[in-house]
């Protein structure tokens, strides 16, 4: 009503969302060029018998092997078992990390009590737990899930605590001046301020989850992609090993893409460098 402002800036959503989607799918396609070229070179090399097939079979052979396994229904079962292990291990590890991180991040006393112990446990290489877990729980699901959970735990815990402690004191002061309740302070200031670092932790944790599921399945399993790899090794079928490897890559990438999409949505308020890059390219 008073002085009309001369400052003009872009309003939210002014850039067409359809255009944005087209730009991003085009940039996704660019990412496919290198793998496709590599696969083509590999196929040609294999057909020319430059590499012995018992060491490195052609991509077409890997695909044939995978589709044979898929037709028998066996492959889906292996995938489902592995995905299930990662999911449960991730849920347990992320749950524990979130709970403990929230506690030590928000209370100085708890931090002084618990954090040194957690840091000391972090110093134990996670795979070193394997003999103990096998002794305690046998080689069945519990020890596998627990191993994955431990791998997942640390990056999430560390990122969450760093995020909470790094919250801008000036914004917390604004909350005090505005008379925010403890609940509103957590919901409207601390959680959003911590979210970028927490999501980074979740993504790093998930990547470790995939790493540890392989370790867990290599240590003894009768199902799962890791088992499939061991089986391929025992029976001298490199196409199976490579097929399982590719499936691991795809599953890891797909689950990370889900988290990445969730992050982008949750952090759309961020004023990051990536965004300006995207605008320039468009």
């Amino acid at each position, binding site marked *: 009503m008073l002085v*009309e402002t001369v400052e003009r800036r872009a*309003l939210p959503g002014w850039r067409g969302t359809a255009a944005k989607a087209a730009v991003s799918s085009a940039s996704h396609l660019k990412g496919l060029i290198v793998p496709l070229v590599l696969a083509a070179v590999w196929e040609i090399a294999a057909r020319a018998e430059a590499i012995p097939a018992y060491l490195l079979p052609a991509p077409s052979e890997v695909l044939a092997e995978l589709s044979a396994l898929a037709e028998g229904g066996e492959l889906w079962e292996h995938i489902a078992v592995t995905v299930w292990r990662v999911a449960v291990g991730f849920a347990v590890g992320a749950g524990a990390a979130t709970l403990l991180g929230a506690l030590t991040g928000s209370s100085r006393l708890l931090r002084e009590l618990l954090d040194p112990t957690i840091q000391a446990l972090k110093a134990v290489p996670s795979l070193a737990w394997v003999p103990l877990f096998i002794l305690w729980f046998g080689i069945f699901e519990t020890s596998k899930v627990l191993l994955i959970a431990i791998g997942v735990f640390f990056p999430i815990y560390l990122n969450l605590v760093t995020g909470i402690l790094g919250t801008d004191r000036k914004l917390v002061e*604004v909350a005090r001046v*505005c*008379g925010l309740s403890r609940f*509103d302070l957590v919901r409207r200031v601390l959680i*959003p301020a911590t979210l970028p670092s927490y999501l980074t932790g979740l993504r790093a944790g998930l990547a470790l989850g995939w790493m540890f599921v392989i370790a867990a399945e290599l240590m003894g399993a009768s199902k799962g992609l890791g088992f499939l790899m061991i089986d391929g090794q025992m029976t001298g079928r490199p196409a199976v090993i490579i097929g399982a490897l590719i499936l691991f890559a795809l599953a890891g990438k797909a689950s990370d893409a889900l988290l990445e999409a969730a992050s982008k949505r949750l952090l759309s308020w961020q*004023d990051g460098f990536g965004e300006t890059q995207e605008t320039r390219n468009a």
Partner: protein
Amino acid sequence: MLEISDVGKVFGDPAAAAQAGLVHHALDGVDLTVGQHEIVSLVGTSGCGKSTLLRIASGLDLPTTGRVALDGRAVTGPTPEVGMVFQEPRLMPWLTVRENVRLALLDLPKAEQDARIAEAIEDVGLSKFIDAYPRQLSGGMAQRTAIARALVRQPSFLLLDEPFSALDSFTRQKLQQHLLALWERSRFTMVFVTHDVLEAVSLSDRILVMRGHPGRIHREIRVEIPRPRARTAPEVRALEEEIVAALDLS
């Protein structure tokens, strides 16, 4: 009325710091009374305790010695009666302009929040940007949002700590006029920290010059020039020079 009596501030644990010779004495024996509807500016060189004094008045910090009272009641922490604008806009980057302003109203019913937010944002001329995020705002617009957040509660006191110092001079003058217009309508009691002497002269009823370590109030100057005050008017310029001279530590 804002009454600050004999306020001193020492940073750090006084007992431990005294032994190590690390006592940081930021304020000493500051007396200041700001009457209802008055605009008082605090000017002084950087580090003389202006922000500290304002934070004590707002209840964000407690004084080491002395007392602060608002309309006779002792200040023990931030209250809705006092609006505060900092040097930086301090907006939550994850909240829109609307939701940032809402932060000051969370204990009120939703319908009342919405009505007050719309009005406060219109008052600072940002209605078109009510759903914008802070990253989409210029510095001036962000600071307007901070002013709306401070005033949406209709406080009787508004404390501003160098609110325009990060803005270009054109935007700064616009916001000064804008703030005065809001003050003329709502008549909140205003304490304004600045190191821009001309800004102090064009806004204030009274200017307090702070000096020294620990900071004390060195001089008090009443500004009798009627508003609006042209920045180029000879009496404005004369006062500016007088204050600059008072600030000079040599």
